[in-house]
């Protein structure tokens, strides 16, 4: 084929394809998916696959996405991280005599939510102690919009200390004591120790100072100021506040929420596109190429060789794929690399295409111009590649597109069974985690719905393109 012919036939093809609305829609979806896959490191972060197997420290665990607030009457606090820039430093190493120094900073939190953050984490305060046996002192005080002041924490500060206020027993005790003054004394007498243990510290400190603050806290909206004071006791102690991080652990997180390892599901969704597209397209292209090569060869050779190749094909086709794939996956003990999965799927999926390619090649072989070419002394290669292949190619493209969904669904299924590549970020694995952590029964919809929709979208895209290609390229279907 000359270049001009290729151009002309492509033009013809496009003219026909343009009229397939579904096909155009599929094409648009495909570009969107390819864009997402390519841009994944820029949309999210470049090191997601490496981070994916770990617990994401600092993130809230299994919380819904931020936009969930639009659909609920109770507004949930989002996740926020404050860095040194958000802190107002009021004292930076004042000498208060006796070798003691005083540091202090403030930060504010605007609480406009019905459910406050689930925790406040203070970490990465750069403390260097000259004498490790004499720790520094940290005092955290909260000033509420109603003017009430609570000393939440008064404890020692060592190098690398992390304070999780909601989980801290001392904070709990301090808050309980403070809140008791507003609560009905009878309730406290009745509830006693249980009341204290079941109290949600964060809900209480962000609640209206009124009766019921312990049993049924009602959020007090407004600006909360937190004062953090640090005292050092030894000459030579250093405090560097520039690395300090305050995490207001959210009741919602990001675009898609988080899972049980506090991972950002949005990042997982975006990165999953890569695996899904790569596996789907690679499997489809390889199976079709192998299938066509096998089918055409079989038809061309004819006679007992054809017969033998057909028996092999049938034999191979009668092996049920999924159980065998599951078994192989189990034999590799869940450490199947993506390429092994691709290889296995190719190994099992080429048979159907080989059958169709053979029947097509048999028809083409009988046509007069092929006979003429043979009579004129054309070589085997020339006949196969010049006369037979170009006629099968259109079918091949449609078959490739139609084969992608199966591969995408199979990969997802294997990952869902826990047999996928553990080092890859895949939608099937996200759903596997969701299933093993009983996400459906707990109602974690943001963990279940988006990955499945994504799988469906990829499969649907290729179904659309495949069916449109089939209609354009295989004219015998046009009358349908």
């Amino acid at each position, binding site marked *: 084929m000359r270049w001009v012919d290729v151009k002309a036939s492509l033009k013809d093809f496009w003219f026909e394809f343009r009229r397939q609305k579904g096909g155009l829609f599929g094409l648009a979806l495909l570009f969107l998916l390819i864009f997402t896959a390519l841009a994944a490191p820029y949309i999210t972060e470049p090191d997601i696959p490496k981070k994916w197997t770990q617990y994401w420290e600092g993130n809230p665990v299994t919380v819904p996405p931020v936009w969930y607030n639009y659909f609920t009457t109770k507004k949930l606090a989002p996740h926020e991280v404050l860095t040194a820039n958000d802190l107002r430093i009021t004292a930076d190493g004042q000498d208060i005599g006796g070798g003691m120094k005083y540091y202090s900073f403030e930060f504010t939190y605007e609480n406009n939510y019905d459910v406050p953050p689930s925790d406040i984490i203070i970490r990465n305060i750069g403390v260097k102690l000259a004498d490790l046996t004499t720790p520094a002192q940290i005092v955290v005080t909260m000033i509420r919009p109603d003017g009430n002041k609570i000393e939440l924490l008064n404890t020692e500060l060592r190098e690398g200390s992390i304070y999780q206020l909601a989980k801290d027993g001392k904070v709990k005790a301090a808050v309980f004591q403070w809140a008791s003054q507003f609560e009905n004394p009878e309730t406290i007498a009745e509830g006693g120790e249980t009341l204290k243990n079941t109290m949600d510290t964060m809900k209480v400190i962000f609640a209206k100072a009124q009766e019921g603050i312990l049993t049924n806290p009602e959020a007090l909206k407004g600006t909360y100021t937190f004062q953090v004071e640090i005292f050092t006791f030894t000459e030579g102690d250093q405090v560097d506040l520039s690395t300090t991080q305050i995490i207001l652990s959210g009741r919602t997180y990001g675009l898609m929420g988080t899972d049980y390892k506090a991972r950002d599901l949005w990042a997982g969704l975006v990165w999953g596109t890569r695996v899904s597209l790569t596996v789907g397209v690679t499997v489809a292209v390889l199976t079709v190429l192998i299938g066509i090569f096998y089918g055409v060869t079989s038809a061309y050779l004819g006679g007992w060789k054809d017969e033998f190749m057909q028996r092999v094909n049938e034999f191979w086709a009668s092996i049920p794929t999924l159980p065998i794939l599951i078994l192989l996956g189990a*034999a590799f003990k869940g450490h199947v690399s993506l390429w092994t999965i691709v290889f296995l799927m190719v190994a099992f999926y080429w*048979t*159907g295409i080989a059958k169709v390619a053979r029947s097509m090649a048999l028809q083409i072989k009988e046509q007069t111009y092929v006979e003429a070419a043979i009579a004129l002394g054309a070589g085997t290669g020339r006949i196969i590649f010049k006369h037979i292949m170009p006629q099968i190619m259109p079918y091949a493209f449609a078959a490739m597109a139609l084969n992608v969904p199966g591969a995408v669904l199979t990969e997802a299924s294997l990952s869902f069974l826990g047999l996928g590549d553990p080092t890859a970020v895949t939608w099937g694995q996200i759903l596997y985690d969701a299933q093993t952590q009983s996400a459906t029964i707990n109602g974690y919809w943001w963990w279940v719905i988006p990955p499945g929709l994504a799988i469906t979208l990829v499969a*649907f895209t290729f179904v659309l393109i495949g069916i449109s290609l089939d209609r354009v390229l295989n004219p015998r279907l046009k009358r349908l």
Partner: protein
Amino acid sequence: MGYGKYIAIRLLNALLVLALVTLLVSVLFTKVAEEDIKSSIHEQIGLYLRGNPELARALSQDPEKYHEWYQKEYERRLKAYGLDKPFMIRVLERTKDTLMLNFGNTKSPIFGETAVSKIISKAIPRTVILFTTAQIFVILIGLLLGVKAAQMAGSILDRGVSIVAMVTSSIPMWWFGMIMILIFSFKMGWFPSGGMTSTPPKEGFAYYLDVLYHMVLPVTTIVFVLFGGWAWTTRNIMIGTMQEDFIMAARAKGVPERKVIYGHALRASAPPIVTMTIFSLLGSIGGAIITESVFNWPGMGRLYWTALQQNETRLLMGVTFVTVALYLIAMIIADLAYGYLDPRVKVGASQST
């Protein structure tokens, strides 16, 4: 070629596939089991030593003696497990055992049994109940919709069927099951989230009602995901048939349209539709593997999940063997049915795709 010879060749082919698949799988699992057993032997010897403090004390004084004793003990136990035989012999033994349905026992009881064959014979009927029911719905809805769509090619119904078919065939069945549980079990609380019966199971007639109640969600899931594809294929086959000359002849003769469609066209389309029925049953075994584990339905699919999670290699091997065997049996039935309905079919033109 005679029908009898045709059957014989199909049977032979199926048996050969079964034997070869079993052999292949045996190779894999003999290897896996070997490593499992070796590590368990080390554990057993450690336990034995801890149970005999006198022996342990005597041995700990002389490291050489200890080493010698350990080696002897290790080999004794290796032999007890039959691991002293060459690899290929073990593979062949395992293949033979599997083909004779001696699957062995599981490490811990599943469905209250430890014998793999007993576990499987409990699971199969449960899978059949669920999927036959679902498949009957799929076939009824699919056929009716497909015929209607073919009758009114190009209409809104026809296009609707195509779109539904494309969308539903892109959905992972097990994921749709999870969504159904999320909505109808968690949010609405209408149906149980899984299992086949309530715990404890009810008595008498209430038991059957309870099973039906538990079947609603899984059956709906399967029907929803499969009926579209079915309707679409039926439509395509029917449209092909309706363009044949004999349909035109029937119409020209003045045969009523209803009779033309259900009497002539549908009958002529029967062979591919019958094979499709059988193969969609096969396909649903594949999809079912995972859907069942989502719904905690105690059938073959759940067994796969359990076997994978608990690393029960023998059970995994048994379930795979039975699944492959069932698949091959169904394939033979499909071929025979096709050969019976359409006598033009010869050996070699198997409808495996």
